[in-house]
């Protein structure tokens, strides 16, 4: 996974609550089996007309946000379906950080698996960032310092759980980390668990 330390770029404002993953990545494209090259489907029905013409008023079709590396959203961003395609489409477009008032839990987890930083901000701070985003200012997100820098020396601090921050900054592969660090703990747990709940290990054959 690509490490995330610092990121600067235009931030695209999506001033809407409850943007679900069906909006981010419409269900009808879920038959695709790869996780790369999905950027063309990102916000498909908001971004394009049915015949594929870009809608000029949609933020990601406008300068400077066509080059956005950050999204600034509202409440409950990424709610709904667990589809990781939503995150893969964001990544393929070039988005590596989403700043919002809150996130759908599964979406947030999916971001972390793909080196995308989800930042949660209280309303006032979020409004500040959204204002800068709307002006097309360059926004700097520094995970190392846990700080968002806006133009004119303004900055906003945020917090990330230490383990999450470390994993993102190191670009760790989650499976590899578990296998390396936890193998014996898992084996020991499994033995205890089996002894306490043998029925969980003795299911009938799959019909």
């Amino acid at each position, binding site marked *: 996974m690509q490490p995330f330390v610092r990121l600067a770029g235009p931030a695209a404002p999506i001033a809407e609550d409850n943007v679900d993953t069906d909006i981010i990545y*419409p269900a009808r494209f879920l038959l695709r*089996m790869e996780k790369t090259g999905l950027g063309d489907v990102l916000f498909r029905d908001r971004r394009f007309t049915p015949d594929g013409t870009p809608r000029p008023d949609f933020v990601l079709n406008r300068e400077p946000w066509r080059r956005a590396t950050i999204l600034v959203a509202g409440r409950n961003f990424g709610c*709904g*379906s667990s589809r*990781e395609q939503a*995150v893969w489409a964001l990544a393929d477009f070039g988005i590596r950080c989403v700043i919002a008032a809150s996130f759908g839990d599964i979406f947030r987890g999916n971001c972390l698996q793909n080196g995308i930083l989800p930042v949660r901000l209280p309303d006032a701070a979020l409004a500040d960032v959204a204002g800068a985003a709307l002006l097309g200012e360059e926004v700097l997100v520094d995970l190392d310092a846990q700080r968002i820098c806006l133009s004119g020396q303004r900055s906003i601090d945020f917090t990330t759980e230490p*383990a999450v921050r470390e994993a993102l900054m190191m670009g760790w592969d989650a499976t590899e980390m578990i296998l390396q660090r936890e193998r014996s703990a898992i084996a020991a747990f499994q033995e205890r668990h089996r002894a306490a709940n043998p029925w969980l290990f003795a299911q*009938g054959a*799959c019909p």
Partner: protein
Amino acid sequence: MASGTLYEKLWNSHVVSEDGSGNSLLYVDRHILHEVSTPTAFDTLRQTGRAVQRPDANLAVADHSVPTRDRGGVIADPLARAQVAALARNCAEFGIPYLALEGPRQGIVHVVGPELGFTLPGALLVCGDSHTSTHGAFGALAFGIGASECEIVMATQCIRQRRARTMLVQLEGEPAPWVCAKDVALAVLARLGSGGGTGHAIEFAGPVVDRFGMSERMTLCNMAIETGARIGLIAPDATTIAYLEGRPMAPGGAMFDRAAAAWRTLASDGDASFDRVELIDVSALSPCVTWGTTPDDVIAVDGRAPDPAAAPDAAVATRIAHALDYMGLAPGQPLAGLPINAAFIGSCTNGRIEDLRSAAAVAAGRHVRPGVRALVVPGSTDVKRQAEDEGLDHVFRDAGFEWREAGCSLCVAINDDRLQPGQRCASTSNRNFEGRQGRGARTHLMSPAMAAAAAIAGAIVDVRAVMA
């Protein structure tokens, strides 16, 4: 020992290790797989040379992209065909039990798991699908995960999670006739809002839940995710245990008795404290419908769409206006009487035998309004067989409904079943998001009886008026 909630007990009994910042590594007992969220997980296993830790802890079935008719032949859509074939091939390669599309046990992941007894109380169960909350109806710690996490689970038998806050939703009173579990679920959404449950594990309790059968409990837990809560939980009781006894993949004989004894102890302590408690009395509840594009846009069937002019602030007004526009509704418009193009009875919310019985009771001796396309899609092939044994297929067909094979169908519209832009559908599924049933399609969520009544009336209608 300090007293705890059911969620905390389930959590504690699965912690392998903790990282000191609120994240724990949890042991996974059950993983259910479907064709849409797993192809990349298997690709990663192959690329990294990792093995599946416990193939027997996995169960796979194709449901989302499968056609629901003409099932004998080749799947017409080449992408869907490739996706289903990939699941079968991947399962064969990694030794994972797979319920064949042509077999008697295929169905929607969240219908099949419980039906087979693969879902058990006290188990930690995951699936690359947000409605995995359904399985919490058994007192399992069940939640949806992403595709990358499917690979983590298969390779490590574990999942890293942040502990949720706890919420008790206490359901009091007695629902009126024709007010069912779906209406209660919608009432919970109306109370909590989409996002109101985010970060929480919800436990449903109270006399309403005690009286509910497993099917109704699953409907309730299924829709917990629409509040943002990844987990909906119900403590196992005699109803749960009776449901599981004799299921093919449930433990048998003396092992079942031993398990059942343990399951009876799975409950929140009387003095356990929840981070949040909501009390909802369902006695005065009417059948509910959604008017908008998030599942909490709920009103009683005799209610009116909201008026943005009456919204508390500009942001809410904008959202309401946008949703009304998408739904083709005027501010303040009554929902009853609104003509529909389609009705969909099925999905993991309402595709079980009890749901079909309820819809059939409305359909019996009546006829679908000409011009309305009405689909009945059993949640599993076993539900279909049961329904046919009971003659429900004839009831539906005689009434002008299409009787289909099991699958997700119009709940997600990535298969052959989808609506055209602007079409309006009375649907028993769980999401009314923009485009969910096809680009530009308009979805009104409701119960199976209400959807059947709408099909017959050709418009949104109070089922009680149809049955009067």
